[in-house]
């Protein structure tokens, strides 16, 4: 079974042109391009860092670190990978480092009201979504760094195995094994919680 993108009726190269152009201008010192790159990628990086590092009051700090590190390292970016792939590689490194640090020191978070659900959302749905996210975070928290990274990037973020291999600087074969092992572990853990299995619609 081979994997291609040819069943998608769009041109990935054209879609990256905008980002590539911004990267070139940022490397030339154009300050506005840094802001544009930040706005282009921050949503995805924020979601990825949360899923990799787990819930923490530091997520905004970590996302900022990813961008500051990434922008400072732009001279070393040689365009061999997509900028988004390269930035995700930095996000993985920052998130894993933070996760290991956090494990060494317990952080009691005071809920940030800005992160609370909007007042006008359906309370029952919000409560279920929150419980589901907590459950998923807990299950992801039980995985090793390598399995978690591979699972998050491939299964949750939807990157291809080849892209994930480039992000993790690993072989495709290694990523396949990590994703497979992570999925088995997650299925095993999820089955221990009938509510979660029902919530995901993954029951018998």
């Amino acid at each position, binding site marked *: *079974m081979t994997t291609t993108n040819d*069943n998608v009726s769009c041109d990935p190269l054209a*879609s990256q042109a905008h980002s590539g152009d911004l990267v070139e201008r940022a490397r030339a010192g154009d300050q506005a391009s840094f802001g544009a790159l930040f706005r282009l990628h921050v*949503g995805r990086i924020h979601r990825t860092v949360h899923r990799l590092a787990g819930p923490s009051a530091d997520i*905004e700090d970590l996302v900022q670190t990813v961008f500051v590190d990434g922008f400072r390292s732009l001279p070393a970016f040689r365009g061999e990978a997509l900028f988004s792939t390269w930035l995700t590689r930095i996000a993985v*490194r920052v998130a894993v480092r933070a996760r290991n640090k956090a494990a060494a020191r317990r952080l009691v978070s005071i809920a940030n009201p800005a992160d609370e659900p909007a007042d*006008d959302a359906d309370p029952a749905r919000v409560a279920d979504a929150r419980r589901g996210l907590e459950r998923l975070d807990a299950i992801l928290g039980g995985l090793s760094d390598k399995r978690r990274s591979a699972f998050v990037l491939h299964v949750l973020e939807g990157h291809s195995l080849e892209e994930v291999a480039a992000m993790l600087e690993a072989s495709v074969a290694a990523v396949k094994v990590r994703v497979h092992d992570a999925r088995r572990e997650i299925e095993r853990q999820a089955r221990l919680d009938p509510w979660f299995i029902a919530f995901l619609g993954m029951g018998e």
Partner: protein
Amino acid sequence: MNMTTTADCREFEERLVDMLDGRLAAGSELRMHAHAESCGSCATSLSRWRRGLPAMRELAPRPLSPMALRRMELAVESGLRSTDPAPRAANRPVLSRLRMRWTLLGAAAACALALLALRLTARIHPSPTFGRLDTSSGLALVDGNRPQPGAELHPGASLAMASPGQIEFALGRDAQVRLTGPGLATLLGDAHAIRVRLDSGELALVLGKRHSNESFVVETRHGRVEVRGTRFSVGFAGASSWVRVDEGLVAAFRAKDADAHAVGAGQTFWLGPDSTALVPSPAVVPSEGSDTFESDPQPAPAGDCITATARARRAMRGGQPSRALRLLDERASRDDVQASQRCRDEIGYLRAEALRASGRPREAIVAYLRLDRHGAEPAMRQNALFAAGELEERTGRHLAAHRRFEAALAVAPSGGLREEAMERAMQAAFAGRETALARAAAQRYLREFPGGGSSPAARRILRETTSDGTR
């Protein structure tokens, strides 16, 4: 879940997510389906993950608010402006790292010698960058002497205010501190690991983002506060002490326990026992976008405006949108010709947010659209139009929502909400049964974000509709 171990089953499992995401070639996908038809275990797995994958992907943190996005963008800009070492080795390509390894080994020996020389020098001349006094008023004493502006502050320096008054000073890299008396503070540590011990009085601080090798701690007898880049104050009230954060985040530690408590913007945390005494309202409000204190003790109109918006934000964070609305309306009703356009827009935006949080969607939409009409900066107009689109959608006005999301895209084509606006415009058109619009929006989304979170939804729309406008 019963996993078989045949090669086909293994391959099926490995490519399952690619298939569900539509990344497989037609031939490969057919073979996957053919295998599932002949293998009960893989068919079950396919069925479960087909239902479970979208649900699992939905379990994501809430998107960052426009305000948080702007705050983070400013922090990144500030981080880039600060002087920092060259790119870290971890970000360099592998080959480049290998080539550098020998160079680094050679450099390491030279560095060791240089460090030895530096240590010897430092013993003779203490670091001059630890601290510097800016201004003082009232009866201020540094190590028992009347200080001169520009005087250097060394580790161990004692700052005392015997009467009401203030001492302003800079510490280490990018930290501005004000001690309001009567009070007593002692400076400890070094330029990279600064500690300020506060025995009485109040400290207000504005700090730039800390580097990984830097720390900044404020201690009272009740506990301590560890700081990253932020604006905050620490002070005494009765028998207790408190920390109040205006921007950013600090980690607070009570002396009696080892837990770190994250204190965010708008929050006050008691280091000692909770006190019924009121924490004073901010005595100083550093100008927004600046890392220094206002030099004029009388608030200027712009500063007054910032104070009003800061109070409104605090009320919003505290779940009091009606109070925020009252504060903003009071401020807006003043005949203040000197208020900047930016300040007026900020008030307008917060007012719209407060109306939205108060459950008044129609009025909120009008307030958001007013910002667009009045020519606020593009990023703010995009935020406002996007928020208006969300509200239109929630009230079932799908086509109006589609128009707002399209307008949000048009006003700032490379803005922070670009992907979200494209996605929402697509969904709104689909929900409003405008098939042609939905298809065009789906094709545009896939063109711009082929691996985006909503690409499965875009493909579904293209599958479920036809180009002649039927569904």
